[in-house]
């Protein structure tokens, strides 16, 4: 046991760090949708290692002293090799081509198997340690979870100072250090080859680093192809990898009038994780003809705006508009600190930033948390734009956005003064989705505020590719209607929502065939949402319970979709969501083959059903609760980074403490059942009390919030750390052969939990995921008495 907990700590730290760094790499070179894939792959390694132990337990235990450090050193060897191989042209998959070419689908499968190996080796060494020291499992599980918690922090520190591929190299040192701690004094020669391999790979990674190969379809990759494109700023940080590119050919002028005959100047383009995040606006001293000739001027035409708030202000385009409109007080909210730092760096060697303008206050927090707890009132609040020009093939479908939920809109609405307005721009898509969802969202907001005729408070102006909506506290007056009509006529725009306008006037300059968009809009505004609710796409407003504004795909409408679109195009309507389904399918297949099948073939014990129920439930339950906690605290803490780090860290460390404490509890006994009952009770209580408590304290300072987060997460976390070691002991004491089987089952359900949680969250909401987590622990409670053979 000497030095085993320390080694276990280091190994666990590394494996969690490796996971988080891999997620970053995939979000940069592919898209964000692969986080679940990485979690599932890691869990696959863990589940499969349990099964492997079941089959080869005796042989492995005989050589455990030698094997454990050997596996630990092989783990980073495979980490580094998997990364290098996965970047090779022959093995690299492309998100866009996964649904286009069978070859890329196979490559995706290969990717999972490739990265499965380091996780498998790591988990096998952990499993061997557990099986070998079953009596001290509580203490060891503590080291495991504490190390995992520390791994989250370590990854964030590494990503703050290093580019992702360098951070991955750094993470590989931890399992190496763990192995050094456990190498026996005798027989060191057998480690020589593994050490030499590790040294060679580390040297290669340092002297010949391999940056992630980006999908050719990522906007950054495409922009770099422009002859004179030059990356002038590159910044890696907690949140993201930011690039600023300059080229004489990069221009940005959304919503510009077709009648504008002036020049559109080149602007530096900003990319966050390889995705376009906008362009850096011109120096605030300049007048901006692009603004004056665009649909964005609409809210300023309707009324004077002295106090303006810009939500998710990004590169500052809308802040620049407010400055150009002569606004005296502008509050800009942007949570991505890395983006702001990168821009600051660029502005230092160029002209001053719009954020440095005397009228602008920049807040590096989520807007709704600020607005909820301030008495400030605004004349105008600009919401983040919805969609993107041409669409993104639905790659943002599952991106949580708490800034565009029903609850967020209510906060914004209450932050307006009596003449205030909300404004939002939507890129039009066909068949219409984002436009209709925005109309639905704004209309519901007005109705909830007691306005029975939303159309009287709303203006929409449409260019050939975007619609700008302005929703005001006061009804739209005749004078305004007249001004808007004139504005549209001068700029070849069409009124989309404007009281008393005929259909012909709505399509005069920018004709759209058919009347579906307009008819549905009219019905939604009148409060008749039956057709909208039955529409081909999901266009109901996003809520905090289902904060997926960009999700439009409806499983129930697949047959109808197939009537309208060629089958090979459907994936490109909503790649993001389909990738999660694909992850689930891969997870089930690989997990069944690599975790269930080996132990099913290998006869071990006769208590498979109770063990399946117990370990399956706690595997599923733990992951569901972890994922949903992260989602809930993103909103509460105001920054996704804080939420992920805090929840993961607190949950894992408190679970570690729980497992340490579990050494004092008799496995399979009453107290074991009490622990499960405690988890279920706390989770059921949280189902109804967590949101009100978090809402009530959302205005508190970060210190108070941290304490509340700590207690809220640690309480169930402490008890959630007990069922696994207690269950293993209960099974191990009576039927040792069933221990790996139990581990395998736990792994299988953990593998499928990540994509499953997301699918349930999208289809039924986070409340349903939380309920499923609580139900899983209740199932474990029911089956706990049966896992122990008397």
């Amino acid at each position: 046991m000497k030095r085993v907990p320390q080694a276990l700590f280091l190994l666990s730290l590394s494996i969690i760090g490796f996971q988080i760094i891999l997620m970053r790499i995939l979000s940069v070179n592919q898209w964000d949708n692969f986080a679940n894939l990485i979690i599932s792959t890691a869990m696959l390694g863990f589940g499969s290692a349990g099964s492997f132990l079941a089959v080869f337990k005796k042989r492995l235990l005989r050589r455990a002293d030698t094997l454990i450090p050997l596996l630990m050193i092989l783990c980073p060897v495979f980490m580094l090799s998997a990364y290098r191989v996965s970047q090779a042209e022959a093995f690299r998959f492309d998100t866009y081509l996964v649904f286009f070419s069978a070859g890329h689908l196979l490559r995706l499968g290969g990717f999972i198997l490739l990265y499965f190996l380091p996780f498998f080796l790591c988990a096998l060494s952990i499993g061997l340690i557990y099986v070998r020291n079953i009596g001290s499992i509580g203490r060891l599980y503590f080291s495991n979870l504490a190390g995992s918690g520390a791994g989250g922090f370590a990854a964030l520190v590494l990503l703050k100072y290093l580019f992702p591929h360098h951070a991955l190299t750094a993470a590989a040192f931890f399992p190496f250090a763990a192995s050094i701690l456990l190498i026996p004094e005798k027989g060191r020669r057998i480690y020589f080859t593994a050490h030499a391999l590790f040294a060679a790979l580390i040297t290669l990674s340092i002297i010949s680093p391999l940056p992630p190969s980006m999908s050719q379809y990522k906007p950054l990759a495409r922009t770099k192809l422009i002859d004179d494109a030059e990356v002038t700023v590159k910044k890696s940080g907690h949140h993201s990898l930011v690039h600023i590119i300059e080229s004489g050919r990069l221009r940005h002028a959304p919503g510009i009038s077709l009648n504008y005959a002036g020049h559109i100047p080149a602007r530096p383009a900003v990319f966050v994780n390889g995705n376009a995040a906008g362009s850096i606006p011109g120096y605030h001293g300049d007048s901006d003809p692009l603004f004056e000739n665009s649909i964005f001027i609409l809210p300023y035409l309707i009324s004077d705006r002295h106090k303006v708030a810009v939500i998710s202000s990004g590169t500052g385009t809308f802040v620049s508009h407010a400055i150009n409109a002569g606004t005296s007080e502008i509050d800009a909210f942007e949570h991505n600190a890395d983006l702001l730092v990168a821009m600051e760096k660029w502005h230092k060697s160029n002209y001053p930033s719009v954020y440095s303008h005397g009228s602008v206050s920049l807040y590096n927090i989520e807007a709704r948390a600020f607005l909820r707890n301030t008495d400030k009132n605004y004349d105008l609040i600009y919401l983040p734009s919805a969609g993107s020009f041409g669409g993104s093939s639905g790659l943002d479908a599952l991106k949580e956005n708490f800034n565009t939920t029903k609850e967020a809109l209510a906060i914004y609405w209450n932050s307006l003064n009596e003449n205030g307005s909300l404004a939002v721009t939507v890129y039009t898509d066909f068949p219409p989705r984002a436009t209709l969802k925005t109309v639905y969202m704004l209309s519901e907001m007005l109705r909830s505020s007691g306005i029975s005729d939303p159309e009287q408070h709303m203006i929409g102006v449409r260019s050939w590719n975007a619609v700008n909506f302005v929703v005001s506290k006061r009804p739209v007056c005749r004078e305004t209607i007249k001004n808007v009509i004139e504005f549209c006529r001068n700029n070849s725009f069409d009124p989309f929502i404007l009281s008393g306008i005929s259909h012909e006037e709505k399509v005069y300059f920018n004709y759209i065939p058919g009347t579906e968009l307009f008819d549905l809009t009219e019905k939604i505004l009148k409060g008749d949402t039956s057709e909208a609710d039955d529409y081909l796409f999901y266009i109901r407003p996003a809520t905090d319970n289902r904060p997926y504004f960009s999700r439009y795909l409806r499983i129930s409408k697949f047959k109808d979709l197939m009537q309208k679109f060629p089958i090979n195009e459907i994936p490109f309507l909503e790649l993001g969501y389909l990738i999660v389904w694909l992850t689930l399918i891969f997870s089930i297949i690989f997990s069944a083959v690599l975790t269930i099948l080996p132990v099913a073939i290998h006869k071990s014990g006769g208590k498979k059903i109770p063990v399946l129920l117990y370990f399956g439930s706690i595997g599923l339950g733990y992951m569901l609760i972890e994922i949903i906690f992260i989602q809930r605290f993103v909103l509460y803490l105001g920054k996704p980074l804080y939420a992920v780090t805090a929840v993961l860290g607190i949950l894992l460390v408190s679970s570690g403490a729980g497992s340490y404490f579990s050494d004092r509890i008799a496995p399979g006994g009453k107290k074991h059942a009490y622990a499960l009952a405690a988890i279920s009770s706390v989770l059921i209580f949280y189902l109804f009390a967590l949101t009100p408590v978090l809402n009530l304290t959302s205005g508190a300072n970060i210190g108070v919030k941290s304490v509340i987060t700590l207690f809220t997460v640690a309480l169930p976390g402490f008890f959630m750390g007990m069922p696994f070691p207690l269950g293993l002991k209960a099974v191990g004491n009576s039927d040792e052969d069933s221990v790996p089987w139990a581990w395998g089952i736990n792994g299988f359900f953990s593998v499928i939990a990540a994509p499953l949680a997301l699918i349930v969250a999208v289809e039924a909401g986070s409340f349903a995921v939380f309920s499923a987590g609580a139900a899983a622990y209740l199932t474990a409670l029911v089956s706990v008495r049966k896992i122990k053979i008397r």
Partner: protein
Amino acid sequence: MKTILMIMIASSFLNFLTALPARENMVNAQLIRRGISHPSVLSAMRKVERHKLVPDNMRRRAYDDSPLPIGYGQTISQPYIVAFMTEAILPEKNHRVLEIGTGSGYQAAVLAEIVSEVYTIEIVKELGERAKKDLGELGYGNIHVKLADGYYGWSEHAPFDAIVVTAAAEYIPPALVEQLKTGGRMIIPVGSNFMVQQLVLVEKTEDGVRTRSLMPVRFVPFTREK
């Protein structure tokens, strides 16, 4: 769940399993049945050797009813979309057409079969050079390829009877509107990679500029028609 599985498997393997259609089959099955009727367009689509303008590894899928990757984050449009865009600008023999975004060169070749001169601009050097070489080998003397920024158009050869923008931006460059003849037509596809969702026709009239969204009828798959 079953449906999703079916779609995923089918969409990935569909093209893999289908045999290479001939150009004639492509024209009959993918174009005429979906309503493309302009004789010159159909004739051009029959004539242009699409398989010689796609990367080698895509040749056997050249006449598939789908866009194909050509590298550099670009695709060659689905044959139907190329035909639809060509038909939408009402091309005539004496026309001079500007294309923004040469890509594979296929759209330029189809246009060159119908109109007198095609001027095409590509911003990505590698693509432009490849298209220039391929189009030269196919003998298109009336296609002029320039490696440049499409934002400025090609003022030396303006005004144009029509402009085909294959790589759409979120704005229409003022220079393009200016270089379009009054009465001329400009066509722009809007959508993401591998899926053109709509086509926008820009018409320059005496009264100003107007746009018209054109919805491709391909939303009814041809295989389902009787």
